[in-house]
Each structure stands twice: as C-alpha cells, then as structure tokens.
C-alpha cells in the first residue's frame, strides 16, 4: 500500500516539477515540433511524403523524450541530493524508478500527441486505418526506451558527463535504426547493426501499422523485442541504480547490464 501510494505521489511530484520547469516544457513539447518542421522541409516532396517519414519522427520523439527526460531527471536529482534525502525515508529505489518512468510516459505521450495532432492538421499525415494501433505500438516503444534512460541516469556520474554519454547512445539509435534516414540508405553491415537497436523495431512496427496498414498481429516480432527489452532493461536498472554519485557502479555490474541487453538483440539478429 505504501509502495503504491508513495510511487503515485512521486509520479505526481515529478510531473509537477516538469510542468513548472520552462526548460522541461520546451524540451518536451516544443522541441519535437521543431523536428516535425525539419522533417517536413526535408521529406515532404519525396515519395510517400511525410506519412512515410512519420514512423521515424515518432521514434525520435519517443526515444529522446523517454531516454533523455528520465536520464537527466535522475542525474539532476542525484546531484542535488534529493535522492539521498529520499533514501533516509522508507521509500525504495523501485518507487523512485517507477515514479520517474510514469512521469516520462505521460510527458512523452503528450509530446507525441501534440506532434501527431499538428502533423495531421498541418501536413495531412496519414496514420493508417487505426490510430489506436499507432498508440499501442508507441506504448511498446516507450516501454523499451524508458529503462534505457534510467540505466543511463544511473551510469552517468553527473550532469557534465550525462550529455556526452547520452549522445553516444542517442545518435546511433536514431541514425542506424531508420528513424532519421531510410534504412535502405545505410550500407548492409550497418543495417545489421541497426537490428540490434530497440529503435529499429519501433520504426518497423510503426511503418507496419501506419504506412502498410497492417494489424498488430503482424508486428509480433518487433513488439516482442521491445517488450522483452523493456523487461530486461528494467531488471538491469536494479543492478545499476544508485542513490548517490559517490556510490561506484563497478565494472562487473556495468558489464552484466550491457551483456544482458546485448544478448537479447544478438539472439534477435540470429533468429531473424
């Protein structure tokens, strides 16, 4: 009971903090619209138009929001000693992690909704035969991305190192997954690498339901990969979570976490 109440209150507090932070609002709600404009300028006149590029744009928005949002929040709170203060209460790391995850889900959902709404109205983007399928696929994507942000938030020592580590992960996730550029533009070996990234599977599933008009049952593999990836990453997060930046992670923990995550994608690549 305390765990549920505490987690809900933490989620509420995190959301209030986001709403009251102008920079967070700009990053969460405004910045994705800048991407939308850029994509429209670049891809509008290409075959398929914006409708063909919307799965990639949604993936970028979902990934950047879920990944950076949750990671930066965790690092900042650790740096400010807020996590340390929470640690001297009966609250657990799981409560903090889920509280952060819920906040991230809500804010990413808001930014995706806003982006989709503008794209539909201003750019006449086609979301396929059922918008709800798009929402379901995006939920799977955010589920896979949030724990990656949590892992990054635990791995980064402070806000000086967080953007560097974050970008190291962000750019391959975006450029090698077919989100920013069509996957066909990449050399074969790079496409193979792309199959080891969770963003690739969100692009695939979104293309399925939005561009090809397929049902959810035809997205079995990408949805399963994202679901499993999310579970594994949440589990790994319990290995890496730290209340204070002075708590060393240890090479063994980091190695176990990375190996666990890589294993899933290596299996997927081998199976497919």
């Amino acid at each position, binding site marked *: 009971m*305390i765990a549920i*109440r*505490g987690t*809900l*209150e*933490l989620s*509420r*507090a995190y959301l*209030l*903090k986001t709403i*009251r*932070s102008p920079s967070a609002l700009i990053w969460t709600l405004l910045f994705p619209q800048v991407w939308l404009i850029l994509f429209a300028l670049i891809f509008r006149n290409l075959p398929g138009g914006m409708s063909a590029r919307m799965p990639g744009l949604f993936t970028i928005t979902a990934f950047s929001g879920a990944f950076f949002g949750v990671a930066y929040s965790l690092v900042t*709170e650790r740096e*400010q*000693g*807020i996590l*340390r*203060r*929470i*640690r*001297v*209460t*009966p*609250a*657990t790391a799981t409560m903090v992690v889920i509280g952060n995850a819920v906040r991230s889900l809500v804010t990413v959902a808001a930014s995706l909704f806003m982006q989709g709404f503008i794209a539909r109205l201003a750019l006449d983007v086609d979301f396929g035969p059922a918008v709800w399928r798009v929402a379901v696929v995006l939920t799977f994507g955010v589920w896979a991305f949030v724990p990656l942000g949590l892992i990054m938030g635990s791995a980064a020592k402070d806000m000086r190192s967080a953007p560097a580590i974050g970008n190291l992960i962000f750019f391959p996730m975006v450029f090698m997954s077919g989100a920013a550029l069509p996957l066909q533009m990449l050399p074969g070996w790079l496409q193979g690498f792309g199959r080891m990234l969770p963003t690739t599977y969100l692009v695939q599933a979104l293309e399925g339901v939005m561009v090809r008009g397929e049902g959810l049952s035809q997205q079995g593999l990408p949805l399963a990969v994202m679901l499993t990836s999310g579970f594994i990453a949440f589990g790994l997060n319990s290995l890496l979570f*730290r209340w*204070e*930046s*002075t*708590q*060393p992670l*240890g090479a063994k923990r980091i190695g176990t976490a990375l190996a666990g995550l890589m294993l899933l994608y290596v299996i997927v690549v081998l199976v497919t």
Partner: protein
Amino acid sequence: MSIRTQSLTKTYGTTEALHGVDLDIEPGGIIGLLGPNGAGKTTLVEVLEGLRTPTSGEVSVMGFDPTREGIALRQHIGAQLQATHIPDDLTPFEVLRLFASFYERSVPVEDVLERVNLKGKARELARNLSGGQKQRLGIGMALIHDPALLIFDEPTAGLDPAARRQLHEIILNLKERGRTILFTTHYIEEAEKLCDRVVILNRGQVVADGTPLELVRSSEGQSTIFIDVDGPFDPAPLLAVGAEQQEGRGSHYRFTASDSTAVIVALGEVLRTQPVTLTDMNMRRPTLEDFYLEMVDDPEAAELDSERESGATSREPAASAAEMCKEER
C-alpha cells in the same frame, strides 16, 4: 534504548572514521554530538541512519539493525541531512505531502507546517524560501510521521541568529513532546543551551560524554577572578591557595585559579585582615567551549582534517570518497 553502539568502527580505505564508538542513548531528551571537522560525527549519524555500513561493531537504533533493517527502521526515525536537499519546484505543502506518502502513518501536513512556522509559506515554491525556512522545511520533512527519534546533522549551520533561535524553539518543543533528538553541531553555545547530554568525538572516538555541567566541572581549565580594591592590597594569601596573579595595575587585579572556591575564601580572609575595601569583583568560570578545546585536537590539526573532508560529499575523507560507498550497495 533509542540508540546503542558497541565497539563501532568504520574505515574508508586506510582512514578510520570511527574507532570503537560505544554509545547508549535512552529515550527522551536532546543529545548533542560535538567534534571538529573529520571527527566522525557525520559518519556516525549516517551509520545510525543506515546510509553507511559499519566496518565492525554493533549498532541498534530503536531496536533495528540499520544495515539490515533500514527500511523498517526509517518508519521510526526522522532525519535531516547536512544540506537541505529540497525539490525547488515544489511547495512546502507538496514536499510534505510527498514525504508523508512514504510512511505507514503520518500527521496532517497542516500540523507540521504550523509546528515549523511555515504555514504562511505553504504554497510558495521551495526555491523562493530563505535559508532558515528551507532548514525548517527540512525539519518538517523529518517530523511528518511523528517519529520517536530524530537525527539532525548540523540543523543550524549557516543560519542567522534569529533563524537559529526559531530552530532551537522547534527542537525544545520536540523534547517537551517526549522525543529523542540527536544532533550534530559546531556551535558550542548551542549545545550548552539545548542539550541534556553532550558527546564529544575526536578522531573517531568518544572522548567525553555527560551533561554540559558535568563536562564543564571536569574541565582542567582555570577560573579567572577580577578584583578591584581600594587601599593597600597584599595578594599573598590568594597566591598561597594556588591563585596565579596575571595582572595587577593600581587597584585592578586579575588572578587565575583551578580552585576558585579556595581563592574566594582566601579573599574573604584578606578583606578581614588587611585595610582594603573590595569595590568590584567578577569571576569567569571555564565554559563548555574551554572543555571542548581541551578534548579535541588543536585547531591546526582540525583545519587539516577539515580540508581532507571538504573534498568529498557529506564531509567524508576525500581520498576515500569512492571507497566509502563500495560496501553501501
């Protein structure tokens, strides 16, 4: 017993922050933990809160082992850390509501706001509060579940006298309500004023433990006696009972003595036998500060310790900041 430690040690690499600390604290009252920077005060407090794992020895807080039963223990203690650590984008009301949700039982947020004199600031963002108001909110966060034991780490550090006095009143009020308060401080006069018991740590060891009066009485410091006389004055009887004359100009004299009572008796004898009149007299007894300075390292050594500590968070030895948390996972 609220707190019991036996042969408690805590080492960070090669640095021994706590060395065989034995402490028994009964319920009720205010206990002050004094010591220079690097003495181990914060380490001790963090071990009691379950934030650090002792290297050896036994610890029991409210009947719980802080290392193994940390979450259960924290239902019964309220802690205020060295820095305030308050989410700036939330109001005091929201912060207290959040912290109340972590406990099995809690008192109404409004009651806590009233107790820490923040009712008028309940809806203001924490970032707009003054230092004293933030400290009081920090205390409020520790009181939200009405715990029997409160542990405050330097609650009045950096506050102006008025803000400090407000916090003193809150702490005294808690004592009146039967709570046990353990707090660390660098202000000796604060400890003398508030504490029923003072524990002095030096280099990780308890070097003194008692009521402020007991500690002052056991001081090896000397009383200073100021005398103004009218007429020819021979201080020989005073010197004979151990007084040392420090000054003697005209009618003004200053003596120091370990046994001030014997000097006063001798002075009475002088006034009876010599043709002098006492026009004024003052005496300054040793204070808790005198005793404290006798018990801890000299300031230069303390300064070195301070520099060593200041490189790490929570004032632990900087050289071992990474080591100190290895076992906290």
